[in-house]
């Protein structure tokens, strides 16, 4: 008989708090190491691009941020679906803790995209399909967080924002394809990233390393934030009281 882990134990905020506390240093140090390696690969090893010069190096931030911005919304919608279906507090807390990180990555993707656009396309902002749908994604994140903040009762905030996140998740592909179609109708393919030449292997490696760094960073920061959310929302419970008094006694 193999020992089996009771996964449902970690659905309780108290036990997840301890688990998250143990995991955060691992993910944070992995993120830091990978970011260092990725920056080294991206800034020193990768050759200068023949067409875009040094400016292309911004992809080592831009592409991972853009991937994470969309991926985190999906993960958030997943936790929202879990929290609505099973009415669990922890899933809603996970969704709540992911939203600011997702919005941050969306903003970084837009900002670095603008900085990259200036030297390569000659303009900070073009109504490119990807940029436009990324901007709308940022609005969706802001709407989610604004709705959460507007509701005082945390349980109602959990469920209302979960409904909004799920409606948004259904809409994201529709928005993306409509914007893409709108863009081809209005602009033609004047600015397109898809026709970029195939990347050198070391560039791809640097980008993937940075993508993993962004991923681990997101996990670490989400776990750290969920710890804070657990403490805030479970402050009336005995175990948080013991934690607080224990910490005070240790000082």
């Amino acid at each position: 008989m193999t020992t089996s882990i009771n996964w449902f134990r970690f659905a309780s905020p108290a036990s997840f708090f301890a688990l998250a506390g143990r995991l955060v240093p691992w993910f944070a140090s992995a993120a830091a190491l990978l970011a260092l390696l990725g920056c080294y690969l991206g800034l020193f090893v990768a050759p200068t691009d023949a067409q875009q010069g040094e400016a292309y190096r911004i992809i080592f931030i831009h592409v991972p941020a853009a991937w994470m911005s969309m991926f985190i919304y999906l993960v958030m919608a997943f936790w929202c679906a879990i929290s609505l279906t099973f009415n669990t507090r922890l899933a809603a807390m996970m969704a709540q803790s992911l939203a600011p990180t997702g919005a941050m990555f969306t903003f970084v993707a837009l900002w670095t995209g603008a900085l990259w656009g200036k030297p390569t396309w000659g303009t900070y902002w073009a109504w490119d399909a990807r940029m436009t749908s990324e901007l709308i994604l940022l609005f969706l994140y802001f709407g989610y967080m604004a709705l959460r903040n507007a509701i005082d009762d945390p349980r109602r905030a959990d469920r209302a924002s979960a409904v909004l996140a799920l409606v948004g998740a259904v809409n994201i592909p529709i928005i993306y394809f409509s914007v893409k179609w709108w863009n081809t109708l209005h602009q033609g393919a004047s600015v397109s990233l898809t026709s970029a030449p195939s990347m050198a292997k070391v560039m791809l490696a640097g980008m993937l390393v940075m993508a993993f760094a962004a991923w681990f960073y997101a996990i670490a920061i989400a776990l750290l934030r969920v710890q804070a959310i657990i403490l805030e929302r479970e402050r009336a419970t005995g175990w948080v009281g013991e934690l607080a008094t224990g910490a005070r006694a240790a000082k």
Partner: protein
Amino acid sequence: MTPFDAVAPSAPSAGAWVGVAWALARDLRLALRSRAEIGVQLLFYVIVVSLFPLGVGPEPMLLRALGPGVLWVAALLASLLSLPRIFTADFSDGTLEQIALSPYPLPALISGKIAAHWLTTGLPLVVMSPLLGMQFGLSGNELSILAVGLLVGTPTLSLLGAIGAALTLGLRAGGGLLALLILPLYVPVLIFGAGAVDAVRAGFSASAQLSLLGAGLLVAIVGAPIACAAAVRIALD
């Protein structure tokens, strides 16, 4: 079905269509008793549309190019402005709670309310739009596509908007929050609606855009009342 059944449902599994009809009739009656509100919303639409030529200048070519987009954006804003009316009054006087307790399925009752909302706020915009389109120099063919697009698109706006209206029930942040939640979701409707008129002007058929608007409407008819019912139950807890 006697009229009495339609007013006071008693069976535990009352029919969904009866619920739709009851809520539709009730909300229509209420709306027609305060006609001024409908007029205000329509005037808002007319004024917003009239502001654009004042802002960008009266060149006919420019106005013709901007026309479809301006009319659609104004329709989005007018729809947004009227959204709180779907639930707010019923929520504040407790009627919404009684509606949620009734034996009719809640999504059916909400569908009826949304249909009434569209008939009193969306349909007047559709009727008004060819007149406003003429001010922007749109041709007859473009005007008819504009009206057909609005006819298919504005119900989707009411359906999607009702979700946002239900989610923000009773919150302090109110109107601005509703705009932040709902306007990003309106983007596809705007693109296909204004795109249909653009396609006609460029000499293409608008059937692709209108079909997509229709598909979006069908999805919204099926999905939005369910999401909206969930949001209403959350707000009533």
